[in-house]
């Protein structure tokens, strides 16, 4: 793990020193040592703050779509995990990011930790998480300490991940980790959701979306959500989504988001992780991905040559069979 960290620092330092990028985006330790936060490094002598560990969950490609126009000609270096690289590919497919102006360091990934899952094991605030092999050690403010198997604490997304290595990168921070031979997606909890009756689905969605406070953290974290200030969810004329915060309007807001990123969202899980009230947004996005896969055999953000599914038309598309 530390060798990947060292390599990231080395590549970042070289890119900055050789003036190939204006700044480099990676991860650094947060104020609370139990979490990682995005880091923007502007000179080679600052690269020592960059880290890589199973807390480095942020999908940093979201800053590309936001930073790209400002400054307009910035050249940006960025670290991507397997899932992050797929959102980057989705952005490149649509020319929403200029390929010539980015420098991509790919990081093979063994899965990242769901910090909330760790926190739920304690009554107190977790202030430190450390790693030793596959053992995660968490310590609270009061000094309570517990050890967990890493596999028990990773995100659901990581447990069903089929692309642990970046599908697109200029340089790699390590040799690729072993990949599953069978890339057929695993849908896990989506299949459980699909097995529910319509009334049960309704109830589950209502339960899940009732708590949304419309903070929009999800769409800010989402790399492929690109409408910035013009989002129809906040548009008052026409008022497609009501101002009122209730289950139906919340669901409408998320449905709009789901359709706007459909065919472009590889369900990297950034929205889930950003949500302060822990809404299982993957229910919508992974369900849409499953539909696209079942109907068209399409996986978002896998190949630069492809176009997002909803922007292409082929005569043999199975229209209306579902």
């Amino acid at each position, binding site marked *: 793990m530390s060798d990947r960290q060292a390599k990231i620092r080395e590549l970042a330092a070289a890119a900055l020193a050789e003036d190939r990028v204006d700044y480099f985006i990676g991860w650094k330790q947060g104020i609370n040592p139990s979490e990682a936060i995005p880091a923007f490094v502007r000179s080679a002598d600052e690269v020592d703050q960059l880290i890589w560990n199973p807390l480095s969950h942020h999908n940093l490609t979201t800053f590309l779509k936001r930073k790209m*126009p400002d400054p*307009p000609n910035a050249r940006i270096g960025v670290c991507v995990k397997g899932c992050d690289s797929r959102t980057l590919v989705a952005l490149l497919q*649509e*020319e*929403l990011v200029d390929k010539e102006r980015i420098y991509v360091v790919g990081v093979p990934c063994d899965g990242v930790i769901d910090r909330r899952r760790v926190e739920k094991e304690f009554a107190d605030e977790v202030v430190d998480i450390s790693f030793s092999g596959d053992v995660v050690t968490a310590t609270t403010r009061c000094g309570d300490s517990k050890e967990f198997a890493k596999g028990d604490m990773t995100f659901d997304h990581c447990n069903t991940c089929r692309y642990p290595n970046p599908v697109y990168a200029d340089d790699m921070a390590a040799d690729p980790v072993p990949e599953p031979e069978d890339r057929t997606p695993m849908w896990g909890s989506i299949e459980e959701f699909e097995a529910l009756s319509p009334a049960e689905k309704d109830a589950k969605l209502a339960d899940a979306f009732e708590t949304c406070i419309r903070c929009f953290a999800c769409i800010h974290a989402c790399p492929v959500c*690109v*409408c*910035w200030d*013009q*989002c*129809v969810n906040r*548009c008052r*004329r*026409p008022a*497609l989504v009501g101002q009122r915060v209730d289950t139906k309007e919340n669901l409408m807001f998320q449905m709009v988001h789901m359709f*706007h990123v459909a065919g472009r969202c590889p369900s990297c899980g950034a929205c889930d992780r950003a949500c302060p009230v822990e809404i299982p947004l993957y229910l919508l996005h992974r369900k849409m991905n499953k539909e696209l896969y079942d109907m068209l055999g399409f996986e978002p953000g896998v190949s630069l040559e492809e*176009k997002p599914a*909803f*922007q292409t038309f082929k*005569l043999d598309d199975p229209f209306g069979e579902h």
Partner: protein
Amino acid sequence: MRIGVFVCHCGTNIAGTVDSRGIAARAAELKDVVHTEDLIYTCSEPGQSAIQKAIIEKGLTRVVVAACSPHMHEVTFRRTVEGAGLNPYLFEMANIREHCSWIHDDYGLATEKAYEILKMSVAKVRQLEALVPNEVPVNKDVLVIGGGVAGIQTALDLADAGLKVTIVERETTIGGTMARLDKTFPTIDCSACILTPRMVDAAQHENIEIMAYCEVDKVQGYVGNFTVDIRKKAAMVDWVKCIGCEICVQKCPAKAPDVFNVGLAETKAIYIPFPQAVPKRAAIQVEHCRWFQQGKCKVCERVCPADAIDFEQQDEYVQKEFGAIVMATGLDVFPWENHYHEYGSGNIPDVISGLQYERMLNASGPTSGHVVRPSTQGIKGQEPEEPKTVVFIQCVGSRDESVGRPYCSSVCCMYTAKQAILTKSHVGMDTEVYVFYIDIRATGKGYEEFVKRAQTEFNVKYVRGRVSKLYEDVIDGSRKVIVRGVDTLLGKQVEVAADLVVLASGITSAEGAIPLAQKLNISYDEWGFFKESHPKLRPVETNTAGVFLAGACQSPKDIPTAVAQASGTAAKVLGLLSRDKLKTSPQIAIVEQNRCVSCWKCVEVCPFSAPQKQEQRDGTFKSHIIETVCQGCGICVATCPVNCITLKGFTTDAIIDQIEELLLA
């Protein structure tokens, strides 16, 4: 705002299931509605006058007509309101016929539904704004794709009327299927004798340019202003120098299958399809040429007196502008070999298709007009044998759902009767000729009489029934094709030992018709025949403005029908191009650029390439929709994630108001 509501009875079409008078009266309670009226036939002259009278007398500023589909009469009523001085786009149509009265039978519920549809239209009409059509200049040149008899006819009619016409033909000569026919029914006049003068007329006409051995590569633009990329295929012969002397063809040592003669003979790697070809120019079939395949030969280059052979020739692309496009891509013969395994799948030499037989009957065909059994051809020291018994089988690839062809090919009954008569006259009146048929369809002028002549004067034996199997057998020392079928009139099995069997193979769309239709954005059916805009009232137009149909590319047709339609098409094209400017629909999409987030989804999804990336003063790019290219289909509007594209006349506000009217009431 003063809205007038007019509810149509359409005789009993609507009033039989919907209380038209009742809903007209109820509509008076709707906001802004100042006038309501029910009319027996709103589209009639008194109906339209009533609308105009109300507009003038009551000062109406918006009009709703609840009647049939806008597809039917929207244009009619737009003209009506315009006649009374109202902007035609301040009119909305509520479809209470196709969407309501025709599909329901409960009077009470249908009336309620009709009222809801009407209310929604009133909600929408409040949001409408006056729109003014744009005018675009019209290019008066016409592209005809396909140089068969239909294409030639359209081109000649248009050229005679003074328009410049370009015929793009993918073969090396124009002429199409008709050039391969021997005689034509019901007059038995020589096909070439009536066609080739027309081909020459087309070639010599000052207003016609023939681009043979070319294909349409790409079509952009819209009615009045098409830009077409045409690929000139490399013939490996400089056609400016070639004089069509055929010396190269005589000397070429490489054989190639003769497509023009449907494989009945061989031609050379360098070839001219037939003596009357227009233009009469040679082309090399690269896949059969010794120089291209083995790297030596070049005999043609040595013998050519005009120094026209050019082994280095490449495909060339030319771009041309047209105002209208006529599709005249013709037909192909149904590939029966792939479907009729009970007829030997093409492996029995004495079973041939109708078009092959046509070539055999032709004096310039591979047998110089002698009817022979293909199985006896090419045997050393032996003259080919004439058939004594000839069996014709109709509906091979037509009216047969087991091969996926339920339609009638419409020409086979007649050409079979013609070929049966010609068989008797070529081989002798003592030849036994049988025709196995399902029904005889002889609906044209003089057709039924022609079939009767075949039956009575020429004693052709018509057997009503299908043939179940064809197989070869040796009977009394001679090779025969056994035809096993049924005579359904006698109700018994029949077996005929035939020397030659001719299959009346049906008509299918031309190879490549579907990709071409996709390039032009026109509809086609499951067999690749192009679809007309309306089967009765717009039979030669397509749903893409400025693209027209002529001949068998639309559906199987005989020569008289194809030619008549081709002239009809020419009339429609002339009508379109008689104007110097065309009004374009103002119901098109427009981008609110300050809200555009440059995600380019509109650019990606537009089938007409109307949205463009337009550079702004600050150097950023935003979407911009070219007014004249936009067809108002609305795909970009639905795709735009920020909803910054509006379709004029179908604004989001209007649609939301419609839905709210339905849901909130």
